[in-house]
């Protein structure tokens, strides 16, 4: 089980699921994504963060 669906939680969950484990991802808000989903751009290419 992974508690928190921000970038770290999503990454940990997908890594585990891809490696053959059953994962519960628990998030307190209505959507995953966390803070990163609200960022405008990311370093260094200023790519959109979503």
């Amino acid at each position: 089980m992974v508690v928190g669906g921000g970038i770290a939680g999503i990454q940990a969950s997908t890594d585990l699921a891809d490696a053959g484990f059953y994962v519960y991802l628990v998030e307190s808000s209505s959507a995953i994504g966390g803070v990163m989903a609200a960022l405008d751009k990311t370093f260094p290419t200023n790519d959109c963060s979503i």
Partner: protein
Amino acid sequence: MKVAKQPRYVNEEKCTACGVCAIYCPVSVPDPYDENLSHRKAIHISYTQAAPSSYAVDPNNCLFLNRQECKQCTRTCQAEAIDFDQRPEILSYDVGALILSPGFSSFNPSRSGSYNYPDSPNIVTGKEFERICCASGPYVGKILRPSDLKRPDKIAIIQCVGSRDKTSGNPYCSSVCCKYAVKDAIVALEHEPDLDITIFFMDMRMYGKGFDVFHERAKAGGVKFVRSRVSNIKENPETRNLALKYAAEDGSLREDTYNLVVLANGLEAPQGNSTLALATGTRLNRYGFCETSLFSPLDTSREGIFVAGAFQGPKAIPDSVIQAGGSAASAAELLTSARGTLVTEKEFPEERTDPDESPKIGVFVCHCGKNIGGVVDVHEVKKYAETLPDVVTVEDNLYSCSQDTQVLIRDTIIEHKLNRIVVAACTPRTHEPLFQDTNREAGLNKCLVEMVNIRDQCSWVHMHEKDAATRKAKDLIRMAVAKASLIEPLPEPIVKVSPKGMIIGGGLSGMTAALSLARQGFECYLIERSLELGGNLRHTYFTLEGPDPQEYLDQFIREVRNHDNIHLFSDASIEKIEGFVGNFKTVLSFGDAENRKRVEIEHGIIIIATGAKPFEPDEYLYGSHEKVLIQQTLEKKLALQEIDAGTLNHIVMIQCVGSRDETHRYCSSICCGQAIKNALKIKELNPETEVTILYRDVMTYGFNEDFYDLARDKGVMFIRYEPDQRPRVEDLDGKLRLTVRSPLMKEDLVLDPDLLVLSTAMVPHENRTLVEQLAVPLSSDQFFLESHAQLKPVDSYVDGIYLCGMAQFPKPIDERIAQAKAAASKAAILLAKGYVKTEPIVSSCNTDKCIGCGLCEYFCPYSAIRITKMGKLKKAEVISAACKGCGVCASYCPTRAIDMGRFTDDQITAQIRAFGEKH
């Protein structure tokens, strides 16, 4: 584990995220996604790309839930997804491992009273400014200030708000604010190039890969940097401009007026941290973050519970992603025996073999409720589609994506013996996999579906031009049908993966990666060029945080040597690496010169952990004066008692030697911590010894800020120097004399130290041969290049090759361990699966047409195509497993010998011709 699930009052299975409910919902509330700078409805979706793509009712603001009135959403939802009968549930799960990644909270600047937040609307936080800059934000990407929605010509960004500040309760450094402030400044200038932006800072902590260059870019772009802590902000009540008071570095008091002030507020432990700690039985550190230790940065205080991301300490996205991978590896080590036991792959009936017959196309046109049907005349489109060549049947569906429609599509395929389908609905980016699965359930190859986007790129964007939108839908369907008659079933290439790993480099990172793979049940070869394992850690004798590195290393080496799954080759060199993802072959030689042996090993993945070494400079009398050392040498001499601190009066350290200048343009992240560590050690051995550190910016990020504070408390002197006024060292009859210009006092200081210690850059080893053997790119600073700075920090550009540790970039011990584990996690995914399945969108080469010119090999960004000898001729060969389907090879091929699966020349040409046909 018990989890409380709150109701969202919307059935996720039924909700199509069409948004009609929110149009009718009468309750408008500030939108937290936009940091409350805009409004949303009580029924809402957090953001347009949210997952799950389903609306949710905000129970605090919904009229029905609070006053039993309204229910507009229930009435307007065509999908009947609104469900006010949902109740909170307590769910219980048995799990083998737990990973905590609750993130962080932002410091609320209203707690630092002097900054007038939130009373002045034109003082915003870092996150608010992110939303202001964002195209999907409250001002659709225009840089405006909240008070009057006018352009703020003059912007100030203030660093360390709620960081490095004992009065706010957060003496630690938040690690990310300097970086995001510089990014914000650069992004703002991209929007409005003539903005006047000033960043007020204490130290610009642009440590880490690529950041110092980013800093220089901001300076070159006109961003002003002022080293000062702003003491007070006053708002002019009429203009709503903001007057900043601050002390300049020369001590003079200044006041400047700005139109907008951004507070780069810091990171705090997440809300609910104590509850989470109690519920999970884990301990928090002194600042409320999760307690971990230097050599086990991902382990909480309770076995089986791991941590990732900012809850472990403030950190940026790549470090969070790295920790996430690392903690996944830790969990996988624990659960190895359960791997694959609970997950199943979906099975499909055998594929029909008749699609080679003449095309029989079925077209399915979606209404998407009113989303398409409200704009596009679906019945007219349906009639039109029936007239197109090869079309056997056309159906229209209210929701093409619903479960019952999948059954209908499957049955229609079987009934009419269709061998290709066209679905005119929403975007293939989200829905193509669904229809591909439906195809497979009907016994058709997954590639025999073509989607037409008549919602996102038609009805939604031409809502007021119904006829034109209908015409566009017809044109797009005609083009898709033309392509569909040429599409072909394609196999998904499957490449077997040899379930073993090779790790290059037996330092801390390499050993960590090897041990993680071994514990996850995979055999691996650990290759070390020297005789002994340990790398840089062998020369580390003490740590700031406390744990004894030598003790850890001894035990760790023993474990690595004794693990059955690890085959160690020391004193080894790599002679040849061949192959590709899943199937590498490497020739090694190892052992002493007289007895050197050669061996060929096969392995599915490679982890690069070649490390870095301290730079040896040719300045500051290094190498010519025996009292001039580098930090690593000082550490060793202190540990082995070759230096008697009791006899030393004064030690001077110089930071950034060969760093952040033309020699090496980056900051090596660890040298400031190293200097402070040695300074504290000297103070411990002899409090009377004076220690002076000459620095440019002190980079003690995160909780290491405490040690910077401690060093100052113990009397270590910190004197800043400007990069263009570097310290000068002279040899006066064997004695050292150092002159440095202090920007604070505007005068030269003269120091006569007993020892001069240089903190030099960490630089990569000479790896040229290896780089050629691996065919992976390096970044401009000569470290190995990761494939995405934020999201793929351990993947190289070549599939099956991963990076970790200082080979990727210099970093402290805990970050090396996390990254090594993250690399092991990625590698284990491939090894556990046992095969690589690639999308059929890969290139293929017709060797009859190929003239072996090699253009494709030259242009392929992924090393997925190579020229090989086929008999006497040279021909291009595609490595499907590595191909990403970009098609560069196909468009450059002079003889059109190369084609792309699902995007062939013929198919695209047919689309273009159909574009030109009139209807």
